[in-house]
């Protein structure tokens, strides 16, 4: 048994697998294409071909969750190979599909991807909007993704110089990161906090954050970027120390950072920064530096098109020449840097350079100062504008959410209101019906009561008649007993006085006659007794009533009546209303037979069965059409009465043969206090 079961389970499993495989068959090729691309190290025409093949295949599939999953995988590959525009195209298509399918979980990820794209393109405000959307859809418990998105927002804010807001977002991101347990994310947050605090000149706090970041790095030794990150953090700390005028400490840190062997290979840019900073700090602490020391990082930065870095390098070179009193060279470097700064709208650098220029060319000082003020004003304005913009984006997103909530609340309100109105209506209906029923019930009760009263009246009438009769009988009985009898006895006694001793024969005859009087006396006494015995009023008034009715009918019509009543029926225990109903039905039936049927015989029977009382009024008259729609009020009355007793009535009529009214009433003996006399 278990064996079979095991086999069948196995078969089922195989079947399920087959089915799944069949379903996934179309994705086989896409899967293999993407996997192959993943393993390629560098971009080539082959890779491009495979990716576009996969894209075409995927496009043919119906919109389901697997398609969307592969879309994500495909877009990841585009991203990895730096095909940003293709990446955006796939992401937007996937967004469309997910919106159609209302796949909110995936929507969060796709919005995040698109935001990443815009961030890479430095469309900071657009990226910010998409991060907000992403956060709206992302799973509340997906702390890692949420944390990353928030941190990205913080980066955007920092780039736009909204440092305080950026700090707030970073702290939020840090909370999420700690909950997710992603160590790299925690490090990134701490690092960002360090940089922000450095920028807002909160150097001690910045150093503290960087120290924490460094500690966090101890847990990240397996990270491929470990060495880069360590160098980066040390550099950041060095910057802080420099700002705190502790150049020796900064230099020590930078020496540590540059000691890493592979740094030059892994991140040439960071290497350039380190070298540049090191040179500059040494220059600032009046150590011996050569012009060429500044050239190497500038060259590297130039080759990487790192404009911010180029500005810094040029500025520092200008400073160097200024210290060598070579004003012309110094000014040219400053102007070059200023040009680039203006180009990339790095206003802070521009301001700094204007200061330097004013220092380098004292005769043009006023001109530069004026420009400085102008720029700083516009900078402040633009900063404010940026802050406002981001606040607005945040607010608008909030507003959309709020509007949704309001809408949802409104919907809820409408639903609740309509439900309560419906309930109210139902309730009103029920109450209304209940009242109607109550009225009906009261009416029925009243009718029954009046029925019983009528019956009682009839019975009382009968009792009075009977009582009168009884009284009369009693009077006669007493008269006979006490009057007539006593008189006779007296006469008899008196007669004894006339007996004679003389003629024995006559005396004998005389005494005989006197004894005869005694016999008469006995007779009269018996009559008196019998009269008294009849004093008991016939107990069952209903039968009496019925008998009387039939007797009356016999007198007024020439019809033969037959009355059969089951002697088992205990009339006294039946309710008055039942009896009056029976009586009325019989009356109605008999009247009908008399008036319309020209009947010769009418038989009435009341029989008892197990559950029912059966009342039958039958005649042998002409009959009527029992199918006729309009029935006389008499028959209608009968029906009403029967239904009041929860019984049913059958009226059968056959032309020229007769009519039969059969009523069946389920009887329940209702206990009544019987007047026992």
């Amino acid at each position, binding site marked *: 048994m278990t064996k079979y079961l095991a086999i069948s389970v196995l078969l089922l499993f195989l079947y399920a697998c087959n089915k799944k495989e069949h379903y996934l068959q179309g994705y086989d090729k896409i899967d293999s294409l993407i996997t192959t691309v993943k393993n390629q190290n560098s971009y080539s025409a082959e890779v491009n071909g495979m990716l576009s093949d996969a894209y075409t295949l995927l496009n043919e599939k119906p919109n389901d969750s697997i398609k969307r999953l592969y879309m994500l995988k495909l877009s990841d590959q585009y991203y990895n190979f730096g095909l940003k525009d293709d990446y955006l195209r796939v992401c937007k298509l996937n967004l469309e599909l997910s919106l159609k399918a209302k796949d909110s979980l995936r929507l969060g990820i796709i919005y995040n991807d698109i935001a990443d794209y815009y961030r890479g393109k430095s469309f900071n405000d657009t990226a910010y909007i998409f991060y907000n959307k992403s956060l709206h859809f992302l799973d509340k418990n997906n702390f890692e993704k949420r944390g990353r998105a928030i941190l990205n927002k913080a980066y955007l804010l920092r780039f736009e110089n909204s440092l305080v807001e950026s700090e707030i977002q970073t702290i939020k991101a840090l909370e999420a990161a700690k909950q997710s347990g992603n160590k790299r994310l925690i490090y990134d947050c701490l690092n960002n906090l360090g940089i922000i605090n450095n920028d807002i000149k909160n150097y001690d706090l910045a150093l503290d954050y960087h120290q924490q970041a460094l500690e966090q790095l101890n847990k990240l030794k397996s990270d491929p970027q470990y060495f880069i990150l360590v160098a980066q953090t040390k550099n950041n700390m060095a910057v802080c120390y420099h700002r705190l005028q502790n150049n020796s400490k900064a230099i020590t840190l930078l020496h540590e950072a540059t000691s890493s062997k592979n740094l030059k290979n892994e991140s040439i840019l960071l290497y350039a920064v380190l070298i540049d900073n090191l040179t500059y700090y040494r220059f600032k602490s009046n150590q011996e530096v050569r012009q060429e020391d500044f050239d190497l990082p500038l060259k590297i930065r130039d080759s990487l098109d790192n404009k911010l870095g180029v500005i810094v390098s040029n500025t520092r070179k200008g400073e160097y020449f200024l210290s060598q009193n070579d004003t012309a060279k110094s000014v040219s470097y400053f102007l070059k840097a200023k040009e680039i700064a203006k180009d990339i709208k790095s206003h802070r650098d521009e301001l700094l350079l204007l200061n330097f220029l004013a220092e380098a060319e004292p005769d043009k000082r006023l001109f530069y100062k004026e420009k400085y003020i102008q720029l700083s004003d516009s900078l402040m304005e633009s900063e404010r504008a940026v802050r406002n913009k981001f606040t607005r984006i945040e607010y608008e997103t909030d507003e959309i959410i709020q509007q949704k909530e309001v809408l949802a609340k409104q919907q809820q309100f409408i639903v609740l209101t309509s439900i309560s109105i419906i309930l109210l209506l139902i309730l009103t209906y029920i109450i209304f019906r209940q009242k109607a029923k109550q009225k009906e019930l009261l009416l029925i009760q009243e009718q029954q009561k009046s029925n019983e009263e009528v019956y009682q009246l009839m019975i009382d009438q009968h009792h009075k008649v009977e009582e009168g009769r009884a009284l009369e009988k009693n009077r006669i009985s007493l008269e006979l007993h006490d009057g007539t009898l006593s008189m006779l*006895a007296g006469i008899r006694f008196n007669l004894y006085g006339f007996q004679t001793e003389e003629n024995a024969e006559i005396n004998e005859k005389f005494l005989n006659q006197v004894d005869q009087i005694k016999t008469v006396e006995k007779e009269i*006494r018996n009559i008196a007794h019998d009269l008294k015995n009849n004093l008991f009023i016939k107990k069952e008034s209903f039968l009496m009533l019925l008998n009387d009715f039939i007797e009356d009918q016999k007198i007024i019509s020439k019809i033969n009546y037959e009355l059969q009543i089951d002697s088992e029926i205990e009339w006294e225990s039946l309710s008055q209303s039942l009896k009056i109903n029976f009586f009325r039905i019989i009356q109605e039936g008999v009247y009908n037979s008399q008036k319309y049927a020209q009947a010769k015989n009418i038989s009435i029977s009341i029989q008892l069965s197990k559950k029912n009382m059966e009342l039958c009024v039958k005649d042998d008259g002409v009959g009527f059409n029992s199918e006729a729609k309009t029935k006389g009020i008499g028959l209608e009355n009968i029906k009403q009465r029967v239904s009041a007793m929860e019984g049913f009535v059958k009226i059968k009529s056959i032309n020229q043969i007769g009519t039969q009214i059969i009523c069946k009433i389920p009887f329940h003996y209702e206990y009544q206090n019987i007047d026992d006399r």
Partner: protein
Amino acid sequence: MIDDHPLILEGYKTTLAQNKLGITLLARTITSLEEGYNLAQNKAELAQYSICFIDRNMPPFLEKDIENGEDLAVLLKATNPDLKIVILTSHDEPILLYELKNRLQPEGILVKSDLDYRSMQDAFQKIVDGNYYYSQVARQGFDTIKKHLNIFDQTDRKIILLLSQGLRTKTLPESLSITLSAINSRKKIIKDKLGVPHGDDEAIVKAARRVGLL
């Protein structure tokens, strides 16, 4: 001699005048209970009489709550304890006769149905001699009652008697001074004893008559 029918009184007188003891009768005839009541109040006159014949059934003298001859007999006996009482009645129901005997302990009970010249003479003789005389019907009745003495007590017998007179159960408590529910439970027992457990009052009376109680 007390009877509401003067004619009967005449008959009694005639009969007793022909007594064989040779006693000369000094008789007063009274025809109503009121007159009888007045006699009962007159001790001096009452002392002259030694025997009183009273008809049980006479129109009641309600003023003094005297309903029948029985009640008057009680009063007479109270006034003159030596007076011998002879009750004449046209009732022959054994219960009634038995109750009568119990109540008054009369010297004689004469039931009119078997009363004739000879029995009247006999009764007179016996009573004058200081004996008791109960007529044949009465004696038979007493025997029947004695047979049922253990079965029906006095209250039961009274209930049966009253029912036979056509009284309703409702009105019985007035004459018996017990509650209606007590009467109903007694009636139930009576019905059982008479073998008519589901019968009505009529059935009780009929059954009682059958066994000779009435």
